């Protein structure tokens, strides 16, 4: 299926889809911002400062999710020799990196009024910084190396090294004493965030995911144009 995929067919989707994704993004983001900045209640302890969460948490989730995805794509791409998977991974990475930076910056802005510091070398924050460095290495590798075979190998190694950090980020707040509080949203047990705050958070997550999808489609479209210009019908 993937070995014999036709760039032309996929190209017809990736060249048209971004417009509709953009429309949807504008709608969902507008609803999300109104919900989170105006309609949602203030927190009993942090009052309006809590609104930073509606940007911070979705950004962090997407940074982790996208890194997991590019690792999965790189590993399966390596095992089954699917070049296309590497191009999908390459197109996904920039938005993941941007969200990682957003999570770090908003975390810092949130930390000052609540904790009393811009930065703390605790396990959660440091491991998140390490993830940003892995993203940076991944993106730099694509710029530095020209030979496809070479860059596929190097980016695979970077993702395999980086993926070990992902569970560390997730569980750092449970394994060690950290300044960062434990997770509020749990799939298996009851969440410790009130539903009136959870709904805007989920809408904002959907909006950020749509943004990632939009950037991905545009980047991937560029990759396909490059292939077409080289006169290759198949990858």
């Amino acid at each position: 299926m993937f070995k014999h995929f036709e760039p032309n067919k996929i190209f017809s989707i990736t060249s048209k889809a971004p417009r509709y994704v953009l429309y949807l993004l504008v709608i969902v983001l507008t609803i999300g911002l109104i919900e989170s900045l105006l309609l949602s209640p203030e927190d009993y302890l942090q009052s309006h400062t809590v609104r930073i969460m509606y940007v911070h948490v979705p950004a962090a989730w997407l940074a982790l999710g996208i890194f997991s995805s590019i690792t999965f794509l790189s590993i399966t791409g390596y095992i089954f020799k699917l070049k296309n998977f590497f191009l999908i991974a390459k197109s996904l990475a920039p938005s993941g990196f941007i969200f990682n930076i957003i999570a770090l910056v908003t975390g810092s802005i949130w930390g000052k009024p609540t904790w009393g510091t811009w930065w703390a070398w605790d396990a959660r924050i440091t491991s998140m910084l390490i993830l940003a460095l892995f993203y940076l290495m991944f993106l730099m590798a694509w710029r530095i190396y020209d030979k496809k075979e070479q860059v596929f190998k190097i980016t695979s190694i970077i993702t395999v090294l980086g993926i070990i950090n992902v569970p560390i980020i997730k569980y750092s707040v449970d394994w060690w004493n950290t300044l960062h509080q434990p997770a509020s949203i749990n799939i298996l047990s009851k969440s410790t965030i009130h539903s009136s705050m959870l709904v805007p958070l989920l809408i904002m997550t959907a909006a950020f995911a749509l943004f990632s999808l939009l950037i991905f489609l545009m980047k991937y479209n560029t990759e396909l144009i490059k292939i077409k210009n080289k006169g290759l019908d198949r990858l």
Partner: protein
Amino acid sequence: MYGRKVKLRFFFVFLIIVTLSLTVFLILKSLEENVIYFKSPSEVKVLSEKQQKKIRIGGMVKTDSISIVNKELSFVITDFKSEINVVYSGLIPNLFEEGKGVVAEGFLKDENFFSATKILAKHDENYMPPEVKAALEEK
């Protein structure tokens, strides 16, 4: 089904991930002292030698323990097992309150006495509107 090369590459990746995870686990396990951001009062009590270097102590601010004398703030950090008296002068974060989490950075003077150079507030993972909090407290 899949070729021999595919299976080999699969096990290769699998081995790399297992090996790296174990290595990272062992490194973090041996560095645990440095990975943790703060110690609890109970952990500080059992320190064999008096620490000269800067450490962080974290726990709850004991209820009715905050007092300010001559611009010097003093309070008690507790983990509900042991307690440590803290003195501090300087800026305090907004969320510093009795009964809430706190991390104090500074020097241990003796077993029960800590001189802080920096106070950080640590809040928990509960988020709710004020009305809900009031309703919960009424129960």
